[in-house]
């Protein structure tokens, strides 16, 4: 009887612990979202009433919408480029035994370990020396640099003997290398390719440091939000943040959905 009670208490503690962890992780997000509906001028308690006015304000702000579209463009294009490069590199390194291919793999993945501040500063001085003007293009290049290792690692891990055998069979049946890639390798890896693409999208979408240092007149959304914050707290920032969060969540769910198809 006592043992049953003890175990019940134990169970209760486990659940409490679980709830505490989730609260710790999600409370900031919940606060952000809740006060984006604040019917007042400051996103701080108490909640003075529920209103969508900040969302209307945000969505009618030209600069914000422009930044949002810029972010989508940079995220979409840079992720696609990183994915194609990462896939081809993974395919090549998985198929061919080159001298020093372990070393090559290491060098391809290494940028993951480098802080994005360092990458941004390096690219900044490189672009300055080359005389390249800062723009969305330069920020996009920066995002390719951080996302390429991720795409490469995901694609490389997904390539197994199974895949190798199917590619061999395709060649045996008369497929050219391009046909092997397009008709066998890529479709067989579709879940991994989708996961890599959506993860890259979320990283690029949220990325601030590189985008801040490598853009000038056209900026991405995180940079625009940062400049909004300089003029003080406002529920409008919360509303933008909630929208950004919504997009990220959608992308993560997208990645999970394609991965589950495997």
């Amino acid at each position, binding site marked *: 009887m006592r043992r049953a009670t003890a175990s019940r208490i134990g169970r209760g503690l486990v659940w409490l612990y679980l709830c505490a962890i989730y609260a710790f992780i999600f409370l900031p997000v919940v606060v952000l979202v809740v006060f984006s509906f604040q019917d007042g001028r400051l996103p701080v308690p108490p909640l003075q009433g529920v209103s969508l006015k900040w969302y209307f304000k945000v969505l009618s702000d030209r600069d914000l919408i422009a930044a949002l579209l810029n972010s989508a463009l940079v995220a979409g294009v840079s992720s696609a480029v990183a994915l194609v490069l990462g896939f081809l590199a993974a395919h090549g390194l998985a198929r061919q035994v080159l001298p020093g291919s372990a070393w090559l793999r290491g060098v391809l993945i290494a940028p993951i370990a480098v802080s994005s501040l360092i990458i941004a500063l390096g690219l900044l001085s490189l672009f300055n020396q080359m005389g390249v003007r800062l723009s969305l293009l330069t920020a996009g290049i920066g995002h390719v640099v951080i996302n390429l290792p991720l795409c490469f690692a995901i694609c490389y891990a997904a390539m197994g*003997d*199974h895949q190798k*055998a*199917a590619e*061999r*069979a*395709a*060649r*045996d*049946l*008369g*497929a*050219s290398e391009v*046909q092997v890639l397009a*008709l*066998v390798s890529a*479709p*067989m890896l*579709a879940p991994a390719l989708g996961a890599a693409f959506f993860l890259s999208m979320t990283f690029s979408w949220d990325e601030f440091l590189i985008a801040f240092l490598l853009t000038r007149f056209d900026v991405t959304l995180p940079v625009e939000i940062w400049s909004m914050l300089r003029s003080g707290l406002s529920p409008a920032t919360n509303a933008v943040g909630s929208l950004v969060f919504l997009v990220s969540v959608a992308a993560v769910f997208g990645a999970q959905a394609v991965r589950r198809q495997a």
Partner: protein
Amino acid sequence: MTAGVSVQGVTRAYGAARALDAVSLEIAAGEFVVLLGPSGCGKTTLLNILGGFAEPDQGRVLIGGRDMAGVGPKDRPTTTVFQDYALFPHMTLAQNVGFGLRMRGVSGSVRAARAEEMLALVGLAGRGARRPHEMSGGQRQRVALARALAVEPDVLLLDEPLGALDLKLRRSMQDELKAIQRRVGTTFVHVTHDQEEAMAIADRIVVMNAGRIEDEGAPRQVYLNPKSLFSAGFMGEINRIPLEGDWRPVPGPGVLCIRPEAFGAHGLDLGTGRVLDCAFFGAYLRAHVAPDAAPAMRLVVHVPQGAAPDPGAEIALRATTWGVLRA
């Protein structure tokens, strides 16, 4: 569509190891040849060289009289049935079977008709819309066969195609494979390490060992008149009795070879022997016998089902068929 294959002095080394050592082999158009040997004997390397997945270091390969040097798998008149099937998991069975035709620019409707025809040939009529993961191992292997045959290759290469199947299924697929080969008339080159499979399907068995061809011939000939001790031992159980002095046709020390089932009522007289033990194998009894002339020696003798000699019983040892090979 069918063509002969000529392998001329092909050598292939991997590092210091010689996978193939000056192998020459002529295969006639429409022949069903089985390359038989233990793992590492070079049979798969030879198949890879025929398929264009590896190039010989020396020697050359002709298919239908055409030199295959520098011709990749894509452009060879060969297709392969792989041991692990290597089907395309994201395609339906019909798309799998039609893949080779698609690569040759055949239109979709012709492809679909041909795929259905090939699936029917391997006993999978009407399953074209299924996917490979819905099929059993044996069915996948049939699809792989249909896919390889759909492009009407001159030579079909089979790399241990039945290796992943259970014994019963393997035996029934053997019969089917042989029947399909008869119908399509394509030259089949089949690799296996299972000598029963080889005997069941081959027009000609090529026994390989350590990168060389040890023996070749019709199953009956290779089994009954092997050219080497290795070949004799690989084709089935055999008793080896060392001989002293010169025995024609072999100069120098020879070995008398007798299959366990060759012991009978008449033939070469080896005196009597004592039965040590006897086990029931269904169609026959398998006995260990110590010949009186050499009590330390152990012979394996197949005894008819009806006779059940007790341990210690004396039996006459007479070999109806036998051979002498160089030691």
